[in-house]
């Protein structure tokens, strides 16, 4: 795994308010990194720090394994919060301006990108007449124009209707699969992250609470039955031999988590007891990403 965005103890302070605290992010090439946090958690500040739009109070950022310079921007496309556009110009003219600024010679890049974000039919519309959703698409088109290696998106589905959200989700998936673009996207909408991300970072009150591969998180948060037993070794033998349960894991303090046969908790308990295993507790865990997120952020709240 090649690290492509890294931050080292990155902090940003505004007056007495520490917006981002000692952030250590690791985004690898090919990731769709979902940067999850409530409103005001520090997502946009982090993105601005990564893009050198603001300077860190302490710590630093590495892009492509080096300190970011203006040449990094040739390899990065970004969309930060509310997208802007020159209102006196059409969608196409706005993109033409970006093409020229990026030093792209071929005008085909504009038509291709318009097509990619489904804006071809609206290309002559003046930016002053566009809805938030269309402006968002234009912002995305601008970010994609130079075929970047990294796409950094701050709340990319803001202002889009459900059909638009789905369309952008599919587009991002396609970009990740076809162009192998690394996507770093922030959101406060869990469902959005859940459907796209391969890696998740959870930020709360400026602190990175967790950074984890989504598969690992799913595994961690799978629904399971947790038994606290007197003899874990014998219990695993009973599970396998007598109950044909293979999908389980053994944890500390004599606990065993069973990921299948969840509806048979009483049967499992009865058989364990008849096999002279003391079961001191049974617990059904049904966490999903939302529960996980809320648990994680409220833990911080409780400890604050």
């Amino acid at each position, binding site marked *: 795994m090649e690290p492509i965005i890294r931050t080292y103890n990155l902090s940003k302070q*505004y007056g007495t308010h520490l917006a981002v605290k000692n952030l250590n992010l690791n985004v690898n090439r090919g990731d769709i990194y979902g940067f999850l946090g409530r409103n005001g958690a520090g997502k946009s*500040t982090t993105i*601005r720090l990564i*893009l*050198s*739009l*603001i*300077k860190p109070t302490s710590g630093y950022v590495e892009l492509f394994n080096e300190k970011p310079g*203006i*040449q*990094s*921007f*040739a390899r*990065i496309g*970004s969309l*930060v*919060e*509310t*997208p*802007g*556009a*020159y*209102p*006196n*110009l059409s969608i196409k*003219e706005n993109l*033409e*301006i*970006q093409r*020229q*600024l*990026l*030093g792209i010679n071929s005008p085909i890049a504009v038509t291709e990108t318009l097509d990619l974000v489904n804006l071809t039919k609206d290309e002559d519309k003046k930016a002053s007449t566009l809805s938030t959703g269309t402006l968002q698409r234009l*912002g995305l088109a*601008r970010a994609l124009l130079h075929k970047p290696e990294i796409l950094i998106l701050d709340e990319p589905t803001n202002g889009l209707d459900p059909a638009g959200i789905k369309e952008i989700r599919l587009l991002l998936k396609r970009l990740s699969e076809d162009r192998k673009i690394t996507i770093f996207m922030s959101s406060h909408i869990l469902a959005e992250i859940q459907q796209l991300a391969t890696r998740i970072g959870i930020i709360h009150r400026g602190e990175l609470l967790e950074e984890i591969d989504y598969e690992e998180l799913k595994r961690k948060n799978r629904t399971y039955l947790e038994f606290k037993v007197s003899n874990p070794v014998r219990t695993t033998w009973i599970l396998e031999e007598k109950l044909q349960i293979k999908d389980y894991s053994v944890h500390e303090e004599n606990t065993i988590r069973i990921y299948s046969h969840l509806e048979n908790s009483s049967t499992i308990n009865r058989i364990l007891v008849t096999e002279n295993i003391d079961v001191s507790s049974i617990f059904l865990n049904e966490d999903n990403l939302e529960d996980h997120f809320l648990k994680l952020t409220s833990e911080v709240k409780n400890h604050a």
Partner: protein
Amino acid sequence: MLRAIQVELKKLKKAPMIWISFLGVSISPILNALIFYYLKQLFKDSITWEAFLIQSISFIAVFIGILLFSLTATYVFGREYTENTIKTLFTIPLSRESIIIAKLVILLLWSLTLVLFAFLITIPMGFIIRASDLSLTLMINSLIQYLIVGLMLYALLPIVSLVTMLTRGYIPAMALAGIMTMIGLILLNSDFSIYFPWSIPGIYTIQLTQGEYLPSSSYMIMAGTFLISSIANLTYVRLADIDK
């Protein structure tokens, strides 16, 4: 750098501010012609081209120029904030400084075009009111004087652009331009007028009508104002956080 300048030009396409600025600058020659026409009727005096041409640019230098040119500067710089494009502009593979220099180059072109336009409007007006004593030398000298006024008014713009960037809006910068115009007008009758950057363009044209010329220190003050405020622009933009 060149592509940043080309892009700045493209951004002005169909921008209403272009028409506003040309309309604004043409008020002066038209008003000037009306006043001279009225005076001619009143005193039955003949009007010389020299007086007519100087008076026309003097209206711009003394009254509307600072405000009008400041408006173009706040537009070129302020729109990136009000139209939310600054984040896009500062995340391209071009230095922030080169983007600011491109904007200042555009403002220079715009300023010179405006005084040139005022000159071109003044000419037919002069024929309409039948001004006398026209010569090619006079025309060339006058054109140079118009361009000098354009350069002087332009030299004040980096201060306006700096305030625009600092406050991320048009109003404080335009208020500053308004206040400076007022102070400049108040100082016009004082000895200090040749040292105050906002009254120098006005006093330059007034002295021309009296056959006098500005001391070189006035030109140096204008050049110094431009240089210091331009450097302040570049320093600010290099250090500024784009957090809105």
